[in-house]
């Protein structure tokens, strides 16, 4: 009994982490139509920056925010100087972002060497709490709370602010949005910075669980892709639901169908692509 309960609770916590990872990817792809294959690299670089800030004596959450801010700047520079020139050219965007993911991986290897770095769980959040009849690490539950807070924050921004209205207009029809005076170009940079910052923040939040190591980027990118394809691109609700679906699928799938460990995450993605290509909550492109 406790096995299933542990799995259920862990599904939710893994879902929270996946949402932090994939929200930025979903935003960027939804608005800018850029398949950002650097997203896993942003996650990894964010984790490495975070552990460096931590080692410099920063508080854990300050380190996460500092890492997010640094990544926002890096993302902004890449968008302004490079991606901007490739608007609408998907193949070129894929190649550029893929190329950058290799560059970032090599830089991380040089700077932080190949040794895995795992920061301690932030003080005060160590230890376990009782959830129903089982004990569960407190920190993982905190990640869910943060994920939910960020989901609500993003939702408020997109559905209830002027900025959000402009983003929605940009997602729906960028040329028309331009015509009515929305500075879609600035919006693009803003969203790209935000997406990069979210990935870096997620990297730091995940570091006490996942650690920072070479290859973390390649491990995380497919998860972001699966979540976003499942949930529907450009839909925050989709990313949220997709994250938790994948969280449950991963946990229960690994236990119930251990022989399918490799494909269990990809099966629903394939089904969605065949039956509902726009994803669970995505809209059909006009």
């Amino acid at each position, binding site marked *: 009994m406790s096995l299933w309960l542990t799995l259920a609770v862990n599904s939710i916590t893994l879902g929270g982490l996946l949402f932090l990872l994939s929200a930025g990817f979903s935003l960027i792809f939804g608005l800018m139509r850029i398949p950002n294959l650097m997203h896993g690299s942003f996650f990894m670089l964010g984790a490495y920056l975070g552990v460096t800030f931590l080692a410099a004596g920063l508080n854990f959450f300050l380190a996460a925010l500092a890492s997010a801010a640094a990544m926002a700047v890096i993302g902004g520079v890449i968008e302004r100087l490079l991606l901007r020139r490739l608007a609408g050219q998907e193949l070129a965007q894929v190649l550029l972002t893929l190329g950058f993911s290799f560059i970032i991986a090599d830089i991380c290897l040089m700077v932080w060497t*190949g040794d895995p770095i795992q920061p301690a769980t932030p003080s005060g959040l160590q230890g376990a709490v009782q959830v129903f009849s089982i004990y569960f*690490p407190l920190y993982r539950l905190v990640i869910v709370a943060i994920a939910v807070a960020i989901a609500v924050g993003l939702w408020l921004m997109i559905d209830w602010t002027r900025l959000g209205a402009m983003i929605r207009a940009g997602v729906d029809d960028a040329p028309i949005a331009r015509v009515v005076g929305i500075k879609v170009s600035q919006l693009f940079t803003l969203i790209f910075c935000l997406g990069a910052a979210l990935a870096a923040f997620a990297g730091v939040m995940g570091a006490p669980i996942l650690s920072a190591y070479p290859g973390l980027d390649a491990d995380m990118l497919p998860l972001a892709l699966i979540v976003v394809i499942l949930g529907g691109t450009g839909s925050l609700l989709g990313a949220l639901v997709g994250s938790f679906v994948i969280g449950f699928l991963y946990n229960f799938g690994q236990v119930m169908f251990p022989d399918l460990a490799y494909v269990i995450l990809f099966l629903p993605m394939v089904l969605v692509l065949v039956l509902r290509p726009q994803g669970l909550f995505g809209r059909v492109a006009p």
Partner: protein
Amino acid sequence: MSRSFNRRTFLAGTAAGGATAAFRIAAPAVAQNAPFKIGLLTVKTGPLAQGGNQMEQGIATFLKQKNNTLAGRKVELVVADTGGNPAGAKTKAQEVIERDGVNVILGPLAAYELLAITDYVRERETPLISLAAAEDVTQRHVNPFVTRPSATSAQCCHVMGDYALKELKVQRAATIADDQAFGQEEVGGFLRVFEDGGGKVVKKLWPPLNAPDYTPYIAQIHDVDFCFNGLAGSNPVKFMRAYADLGVKAKVPLLAGWTAMDDALLKSVGEEAVGVISAAWYSADFDTPSNKSFVADLQKDYGVLPGGYSAGMYIAGQCVEAALAKLGDKGDDRKALAEALHGVSLTDTPRGTFHFDHFGNVVGTVFIRKCEKKDGKLTNTVIKTYPNVSQFWTYDEKAFLAQPVYGRDEPPAKNLEQ
């Protein structure tokens, strides 16, 4: 600079401040006779880069101590990055043999890399001193050009199975290992000795190599006396943290193969590793003169504690030196070199005394260590040594080789419980 100087060593060198090992290992060859060339197949990119960098540090430390001269002959090191995959290993093996014309290859790192190139080095008659553990290269598909001074995958795990039964006196085990050749062979070896001695493995778990979260696996570990973990790379770091966080460590003690508790990995783990018992063929605190100088020099140059990856390549360097000393001026005869390597028997090495069996695999010491916290630092303290451990453990060689090679379901586990 020699032409082994490639883009990656250049980048790594500049990034680290310009004067690091990448520069020192290249030996300018201005001597009259051509230098003896050592090709290192290592991994400098991707998830296995950690061990790969350590391999390079190990051989670089050795060559520096010897002033790039082995048995009176200048030595040049050619470093190739396989990327940690079989195709890359094959390409780079071809590159160092055909283009650079190396006399001997050290490496590769991963079992599946070695399996990908074993036929090729045999065909090209180039001696190879392996770190990779793939069992069959020194068992059912013996390659006369391969020697292995480290260990087969199961060599230490046989010992661990025996130790668990006889010293820890435990009976029920769960195992968890990466779902790839090395992890499967480790668990196979552990399971054979443990079950032959009357123990029971009731649960075998095989997370994929890139499992993002070990919780669903750890949640299945209960009602056992201990859990044997055969994880490698950065995976043990993630695993042990989750294992402790979920409160399982307090109930189910953890045993480990050498990669999961390698000395070089200790700086990446915390309290969660305290108490873990591991079986390894190298231990940084082992007291031999060469180990003392190796540990001191490596710490001086790189500021890290050596583990099996760097020690393995240091010892491989010692093997090359011993073989060259025996061959005199016939060092360029690759066949003779392979034979001489098989005959190498050393007493002062970082792992102590060892020799090779007639398959080219090491017969040497295996250490049982317990992780402790001393003066705020984690150390693996040796609690028992098993001298002269063969790859066949105490089994009869013929009977052992008549069995299929260790694998995911080999030997079959008869006591699994749902």
